[in-house]
């Protein structure tokens, strides 16, 4: 199929940036979206132009790097997928596809479609861990009884890949689905209890300091999240923060 692409081009973090039109031809419907981008970039390189910079790593939906806002949706029109898992069969011959970087004040553009998501890392560092003595007599995690239900829910929360689609999608640029998932994954398990109050307090404080917005429960993040992280995790984070402050 032949496509018209409208892509955000921005030289560096200080440049102004604008949408630029490109044409790509003979795109197979079996290609992934990133493969289509590769075709475009080869074309650009061959004609001596600067290729479009975009983030990617695993190309199988696990690293969370690929971050494009495609036709008005994070990771494009498909559900439960990252951009690298998006297939060109979701589009038709002759389509115009708009491709923008993830937008949020806290995710500044580095170049073209590449944005700086280290705000997520700083939130993680603020409390997204448990402290374990690793001096050689570490307790076997399997020795701690955990209900199947809690283990499943914690595992579901832990599948968040930190891609930032929730923030990109949110009309408030709120990071609460991500932080909710990261808080929940520990809040649900006995190992997470000891540091629970400090964890949620510090992670929420960091989230606010990074300049993410306030959740208004539109539920858009849950729909666009490639890993199907549930809004229940935001409610749990709110509960955890209330609990932490009542202590």
């Amino acid at each position, binding site marked *: 199929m032949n496509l018209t692409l409208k892509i955000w081009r921005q030289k560096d973090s200080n440049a102004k940036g604008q949408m630029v039109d490109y044409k790509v031809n003979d795109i197979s419907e079996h290609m992934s979206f990133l493969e289509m981008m590769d075709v475009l970039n080869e074309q650009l390189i061959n004609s001596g132009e600067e290729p479009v910079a975009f983030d990617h790593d695993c190309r199988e939906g696990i690293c969370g790097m690929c971050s494009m806002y495609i036709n*008005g949706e994070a990771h494009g029109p498909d559900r439960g997928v990252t951009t690298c898992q998006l297939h060109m069969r979701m589009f038709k011959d002759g389509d115009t596809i708009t491709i923008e970087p993830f*937008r949020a004040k806290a995710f500044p553009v580095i170049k073209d479609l590449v944005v700086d998501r280290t705000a997520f890392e700083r939130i993680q560092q603020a409390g997204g861990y448990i402290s374990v003595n690793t001096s050689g007599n570490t307790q076997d995690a399997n020795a701690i009884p955990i209900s199947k239900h809690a283990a499943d829910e914690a595992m579901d929360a832990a599948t968040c890949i930190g891609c930032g689609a929730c923030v990109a999608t949110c009309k408030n*640029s709120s990071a609460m689905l991500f932080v909710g998932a990261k808080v929940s994954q520990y809040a649900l398990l006995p190992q997470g209890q000891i540091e629970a109050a400090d964890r949620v307090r510090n992670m*929420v404080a960091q*989230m606010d300091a990074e300049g*993410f917005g306030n959740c208004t*429960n539109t539920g858009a993040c849950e729909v666009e999240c490639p890993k199907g992280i549930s809004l229940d995790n*935001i*409610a749990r984070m709110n509960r955890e923060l*209330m609990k932490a402050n009542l202590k």
Partner: protein
Amino acid sequence: MSGFFKSSIGRKVAMALSAFFLMFFLIIHLAVNITSLFSVELFNQLSHFMGTNPLVQLALQPVLIFGVVFHFVMGFILEIKNRKAIGISYAKNNGAANSTWISRNMIYSGLVILAFLVLHFIDFWFPEMKLKYIEGDMTGVIAGTQEFRYFEELQHKFLSPIRVGAYVLAFIFLALHLLHGFTSAFQSMGSTAGRKKALQTFGKIYAYAIPLGFIIIAVWHHFNHL
């Protein structure tokens, strides 16, 4: 605890608390007003009680006013903060793909309600305050008679088709505000109950029934005045 209400989540909790209070108040307000459809006497008595009881006037009324003001001021603060958090907006954004229009436009439904509240205060509240606390007339009767003035005043207000139209429009926006707000408030309070079928159904019934009740009252008095 003061740090809590400065956090993004704490502000949302405060927002939800004020909203729960307002939603409870609306039930009481509707219950009193609905009596005007079938009993002039009962409506007058209840109005007189609400208007002169010291507990209602000096304790509940200030709390209510604080609740309303807090709710919309905090609504504006959150809206401004959220706009700042966005930065550059998308050239193409397909909001309808993942969320409802009403959930994305709470500030606009809220603004219509606020405009209505201004009209409503000018209509009923300011004249009441002036009559009772400035002119000192706590009798609640029409001057020179033994009859209560409340029902008469109510009917008089709804003679104007423009005012009735404005009320109807405002209540439609209240319904929209509540269709998202009711369940949203539970989520803000950290409860997943708002995500379950039972409460969603109840929320829908509430969001339609309360505004519809007020609309019926306004329209009824427009067409059935003495």
